[in-house]
C-alpha cells in the first residue's frame, strides 16, 4: 500500500496484466509509471531511476525486457509478476525482491485506503529537449476535472463500447481507461496488428466511441479502409495528439455518419486535453474552415490565452504562444525546478500559474483557437511528442561530429511522417548511429535515415541552419520524383 506518494511502474504493452497493474497501483494509492515494452531498456532504466519507482509490475510476455531494465536499475525494487507461475532464475542475485503469482494474496477491496486529491495518479515521461526524458506528475486533482468534463460533455454509459488504441505511455490512454471504467462502459483493446487499420474490428464489435490520433485515420484513408458509411455504430469520434486536417475530418465524417466528431487539444502538462472543438456537419460551414481544423475552446474550469514575445495577451485574430491555466494544469516537471520555472509561469497581470505550451495559435471569434505551429523544435510523429534536440543529442554522442534532426517527410495532410538525421562525413557508419538511436530513443523518435554533410550549414548565429537541411530534403525529393 502506498501513501499517495509511492510510485509503481508498469512494464507492458496493453495486455490485461498491464491494465490490472495500473488499476492495482491506483487502488493501493500508488502513482503508476507506465513503461513501454517497445522502448529500449536503457531508456526505461533511466525512467525507473528518475521516477525512483519502488515497485514494478511486469507481465509474463516482457520478462526478458524487464531483466534488462532491472539490471540497470541500481535501487531496490519490489517486482510483481502477477501472471508468472514462478520467479525466473535470472532474478537471483539482483538487489530486487520478486513476487510471482503464488506469492500474491487475493485482493481485499474492502480494506483499500481512501485516496486524496493530492495523490499522484500517474507519472509520465516525455521527450526532453535537454537530451533526456522529462517526467510530468499528474495528480488526482488534475485528472478528475478532465474526467468530469468528459462525462458531462459526452455522457458515456454502460452501453458504450470504446476503442483502446493508445499505448499506456501516451496520456490519451488515461482517457480510454477511466472514461470507460468510470461509466461502466466496455473498453475494447484493439490488437497491435489491427491498430493501424481497425475497420473490421470496429464494425464487428459495433463500437460506439472512437478515440485516436489523426494519423490512425490517415493510415486508414491511405489503405482505402475508411469509406463512406463504414462506421454507423459510432456515436462519438475524438481526435487528439496532433493537428487534424480538414480533408481527413471530412473523410471520417462520411465514414461515421452518426457520430459527433471533436478535435481535442492538450499537452501532458495540462492533463490529456484542455480544449475541444466540434466539427460542423454542414458542408458550407466546413468549406469556410482552415485546412488545419481549430482546437476550440477550453473545457470548464480551464483557461487559455495567447501571448506575444513581451508576454502581453494578443487580440483575437493575432498570433501568440498559447498558455494554459486551470485545475488540469500540473505543478511542473518531476524533480526539475529549472525546467518548471521556464514553462510554468506567473504573469504580472494575473495570480494564476500558466503553462507555456510552445504552440503558436490565434483566436478566432467563430471557432476558438486555431493551431498554427510551434515556437520551438518539438514535432509530433503519429501523435507522439519528439523534441528534436533529444534526437540530436543522441546522434551527436554517437557520431562525435555535428549532428541534426528534422521531421521528414511531411505527408500530404501536413502531418510529419518520420525523422531524418544528419551527421558530418567523418563520423561512424550509419548503422552505428542508427543503433545508438534505437538503444536510447523510443521507436517513433529513431531517424529513418542518416544523411551525411560535408559542408555543415550554419545560420548567421553560427548554429545549425535547419531550414537549409529541410531545403536539401525537399530538393532530394523533387529530383527523385522528376
Amino acid at each position, binding site marked *: 500500500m502506498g501513501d499517495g506518494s509511492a510510485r509503481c511502474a508498469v512494464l507492458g504493452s496493453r495486455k490485461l496484466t498491464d491494465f490490472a497493474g495500473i488499476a492495482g497501483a491506483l487502488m493501493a494509492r500508488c502513482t503508476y509509471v507506465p513503461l513501454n515494452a517497445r522502448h529500449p531498456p536503457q531508456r526505461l532504466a533511466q525512467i525507473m531511476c528518475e521516477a525512483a519507482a519502488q515497485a514494478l509490475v511486469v507481465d509474463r510476455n516482457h520478462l526478458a525486457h524487464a531483466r534488462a531494465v532491472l539490471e540497470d536499475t541500481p535501487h531496490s525494487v519490489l517486482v510483481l509478476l502477477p501472471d508468472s507461475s514462478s520467479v525466473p532464475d535470472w532474478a537471483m542475485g539482483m538487489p530486487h525482491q520478486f513476487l510471482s503469482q503464488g506469492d500474491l494474496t487475493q485482493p481485499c477491496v474492502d480494506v483499500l485506503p481512501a485516496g486524496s486529491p493530492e495523490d499522484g495518479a500517474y507519472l509520465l515521461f516525455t521527450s526532453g529537449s535537454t537530451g533526456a526524458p522529462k517526467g510530468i506528475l499528474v495528480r488526482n486533482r488534475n485528472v478528475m476535472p478532465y474526467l468530469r468534463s468528459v462525462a458531462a460533455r459526452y455522457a458515456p454509459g454502460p452501453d458504450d463500447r470504446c476503442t483502446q488504441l493508445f499505448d499506456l505511455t501516451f496520456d490519451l490512454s488515461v482517457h480510454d481507461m477511466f472514461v470507460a471504467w468510470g461509466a461502466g462502459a466496455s473498453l475494447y483493446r484493439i490488437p*497491435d496488428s489491427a*491498430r493501424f*487499420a*481497425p475497420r473490421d474490428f470496429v464494425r464487428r464489435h459495433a463500437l460506439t466511441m472512437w478515440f485516436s490520433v489523426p494519423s490512425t485515420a490517415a493510415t486508414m484513408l491511405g*489503405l482505402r479502409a475508411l469509406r463512406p458509411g463504414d462506421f454507423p455504430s459510432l456515436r462519438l469520434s475524438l481526435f487528439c495528439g496532433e493537428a487534424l486536417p480538414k480533408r481527413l475530418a471530412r473523410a471520417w465524417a462520411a465514414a461515421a455518419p452518426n457520430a459527433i466528431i471533436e478535435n481535442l487539444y492538450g499537452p501532458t502538462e495540462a492533463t490529456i486535453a484542455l480544449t475541444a472543438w466540434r466539427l460542423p456537419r454542414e458542408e458550407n460551414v466546413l468549406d469556410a474552415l482552415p485546412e488545419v481544423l481549430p482546437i476550440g475552446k477550453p473545457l470548464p474550469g480551464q483557461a487559455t490565452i495567447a501571448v506575444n514575445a513581451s508576454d502581453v495577451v494578443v487580440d483575437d485574430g493575432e498570433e501568440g504562444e498559447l498558455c494554459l491555466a486551470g485545475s488540469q494544469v500540473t505543478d511542473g516537471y518531476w524533480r526539475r525546478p529549472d525546467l518548471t520555472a521556464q514553462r510554468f509561469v506567473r504573469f504580472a497581470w494575473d495570480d494564476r500559474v500558466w503553462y507555456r505550451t510552445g504552440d503558436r495559435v490565434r483566436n478566432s471569434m467563430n471557432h476558438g483557437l486555431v493551431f498554427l505551429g510551434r515556437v520551438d523544435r518539438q514535432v509530433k510523429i*503519429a501523435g507522439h511528442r519528439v523534441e528534436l534536440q533529444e534526437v540530436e543529442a543522441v546522434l551527436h554522442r554517437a557520431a562525435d561530429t555535428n549532428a541534426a534532426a528534422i521531421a521528414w517527410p511531411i505527408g500530404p495532410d501536413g502531418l510529419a511522417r518520420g525523422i531524418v538525421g544528419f551527421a558530418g562525413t567523418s563520423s561512424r557508419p550509419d548503422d552505428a548511429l*542508427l543503433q545508438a538511436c534505437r538503444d536510447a530513443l523510443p521507436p517513433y523518435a529513431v531517424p529513418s535515415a542518416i544523411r551525411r554533410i560535408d559542408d555543415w550549414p550554419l545560420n548567421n548565429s553560427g548554429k545549425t541552419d535547419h531550414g537549409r537541411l529541410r531545403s536539401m530534403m525537399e530538393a532530394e525529393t523533387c529530383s527523385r520524383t522528376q
Partner: protein
Amino acid sequence: MTIDNSPLLRLLSDALAQRLHRDGRNTVRIDADTDLIELGIVDSQALLDMILDAEAGSGQLFDAEGMDFESGVTLRRLAAAFAAPA
C-alpha cells in the same frame, strides 16, 4: 530474408528489405510468415509505404477488406490482399 517467388511477395519483400537496409537492420531474419508488427520492425507508416510501393510496382491495388489484420501482418497475408488489376 527468405521469401518464395510470387511477384507480389517479391515486391513487398524487396520494399521491406530496402527499409531494413536503410535502417541498418540487415541481420533481421524475416520470412513470408513473420508477423511484422509483433517483431516491431514496421510501424503503420512503414507498412503503408510498403503497400503503396507494391501497388506502384505491380499495378494492383491493395484491398484492406481482404486482409485480416487481427490475425497478424505477414508478407504472405499482405500479398494475398492485392486484387488483380481492373
